[in-house]
């Protein structure tokens, strides 16, 4: 456990949430949550169903705007921003239930992930020949690296609707990676997978973290996976933060154990 600790000391805070409050009408989804994500770490968010994990991700992502609290990303405080502006800041994500573009091929899906890196205007695109094609080819090269990395060469021209679930998850990861994000949000990347697929996915997540140095925030229910790959873990319950620390600390925390197993009163 010494290696992740070293990594943490050297790194600076990439994302910091301060006293976030989010409610829908009378329902409080998140109350007074503060935590930070260091550059280059794998940060897990866990908690029972309805604990507010996905809401928190949506806050980071710009889908929800918290009523109170501050969000600092990459050294700057964020004021209310649309999700597509946040994409330009370098945050990308995958979804709990796959949100791929069903009518498009794998290649097109991942190419769409390059959206923020392509700038040629409509007139050049209408002409195609020249700068637009040049830009397309440059980005295609990058996308091919991702296809190689995720080992999905054989299906690059298949419409994603035809792929099995595990591969779709992988393509979605590829689409998020294509944006070259500073921070990658993964909402239950291993939900509904068998052991083998989970192992593959774990390997990809760790490889992404190692080779690209991408900071990763993930929500996951599989405790084995979380404890294995996360550097630090946040535990939520009923919209409150009940634990925060390295996997070992969290595992032995009495409040966390109570939240998961229940307490007799």
């Amino acid at each position: 456990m010494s290696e992740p600790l070293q990594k943490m000391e050297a790194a600076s805070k990439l994302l910091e949430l301060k006293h976030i409050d989010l409610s829908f009408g009378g329902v409080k989804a998140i109350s007074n949550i503060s935590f930070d994500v260091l550059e280059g770490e794998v940060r897990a968010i866990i908690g029972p169903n309805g604990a507010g994990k996905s809401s928190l991700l949506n806050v980071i992502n710009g889908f929800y705007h918290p009523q109170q609290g501050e969000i600092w990303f990459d050294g700057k405080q964020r004021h209310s921003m649309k999700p597509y502006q946040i994409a330009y800041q370098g945050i990308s994500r995958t979804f709990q239930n796959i949100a791929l573009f069903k009518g498009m091929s794998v290649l097109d899906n991942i190419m769409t992930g390059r959206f923020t890196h392509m700038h040629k205007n409509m007139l050049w695109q209408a002409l195609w020949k020249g700068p637009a094609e040049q830009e397309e080819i440059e980005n295609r090269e990058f996308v091919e690296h991702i296809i190689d990395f995720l080992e999905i060469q054989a299906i690059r021209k298949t419409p994603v609707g035809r792929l099995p679930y595990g591969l779709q998850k992988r393509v979605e990861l590829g689409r998020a990676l294509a944006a070259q994000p500073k921070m990658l949000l993964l909402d239950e990347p291993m939900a509904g997978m068998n052991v083998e697929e989970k192992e593959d996915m774990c390997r990809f997540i760790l490889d992404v973290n190692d080779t690209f140095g991408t900071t990763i925030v993930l929500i996951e229910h599989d405790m084995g996976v979380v404890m294995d790959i996360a550097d630090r873990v946040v535990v939520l319950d009923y919209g409150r933060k009940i634990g925060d620390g390295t996997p070992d600390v969290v595992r032995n925390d009495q409040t966390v154990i109570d939240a998961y197993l229940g307490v007799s009163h």
Partner: protein
Amino acid sequence: MFYRESGDFKKTYQKDSQTFPIKFDRWRYYFVMLVAFVVVPMFLTDYIANAVMIPFLVWAIAALGLNILVGYTGQLSLGTGGFMAVGAYATYKLMTAFPGMDMVSVILLSGLITAVVGALFGLPSLRIKGFYLAVATLAAQFFLVWLLNKVPWFYNYSASGQISAPQREMFGVIITGPHATPVAGYLFCLGFAVGLAWIARNLTRGRLGRSWMAIRDMDIAAEIIGVNPLTAKLSAFAVSSFFVGISGSLFFSVYLGAAEVTEAFGISVSFSVLFMIIIGGLGSIFGSFIGAAFMVLMPVLLKNVLVGAMGWPTDLAAHFEYIIVGGLILIFLIIEPHGLAQMARVLKEKLRLWPFPH
């Protein structure tokens, strides 16, 4: 045997992303172009040009435009007739106000004017989706037709309320007005149709097209990736209206010659263009053409067969025409809900392996 991709290795990304990756397709495309530009004009009669070829091309352009909006971006629109009317009236105003302007500029400008109007009426799409958006665009249809009918400035205060295309020449050949030759009109429309199809293909395979399809397939995920829904939807409305405007412009200036807005650009126009792309195939450029061909050619063909070959009375044949075309639409949609273009795609997949399927 002849339709093979094996052995045809693509060594550059440029080659890999070309429109017709299979050699046979490429040659077939060149062949079709040759036939369309050289062979057809040599044998073109008045009847074929005015009843078949020119309407086919004009409707194909309209279908292309609507397909960008409905097929690629997933925004259902019933305003096509209204936007075609805007294109037609813009052409009329430009032709009468600037008699010296050449026809290509007139038509492109009409397209641009329609694009602006289309983007304006696309604004509700940011809040409304699906069928509700269709109803909102229906408002555009009725409002635009009403406006063009109500304000006499649009038809230069003519007593009949009609607009009629003055005679214009290009390279010394008359292309509009009563003395235009069918070949000139045909080639003029063909040039636009091919050029616009090429532009549609380029736009839909690039960054913009992917953002459209992303909005169509999963708008939340599109936003996460950085697609601004506002620009994606409005650009789709603008580009689509540009195409539809050009189609309306050609429909009026080359095909009809004279038009009255409620008759020529009513709600039935919106529906028939929508049917073209549904039958042809949503999200397919080839589908736009084949859908337009189906809707234009089928009635003509049936009329010729029923009246010409079988000697039925004209009025009876006219009614049977509707029945048969309606029935064929049903049959095609049951066999292949994704349209004729999908049928062609399936056929191609089979052809790749034919005659040895293993």
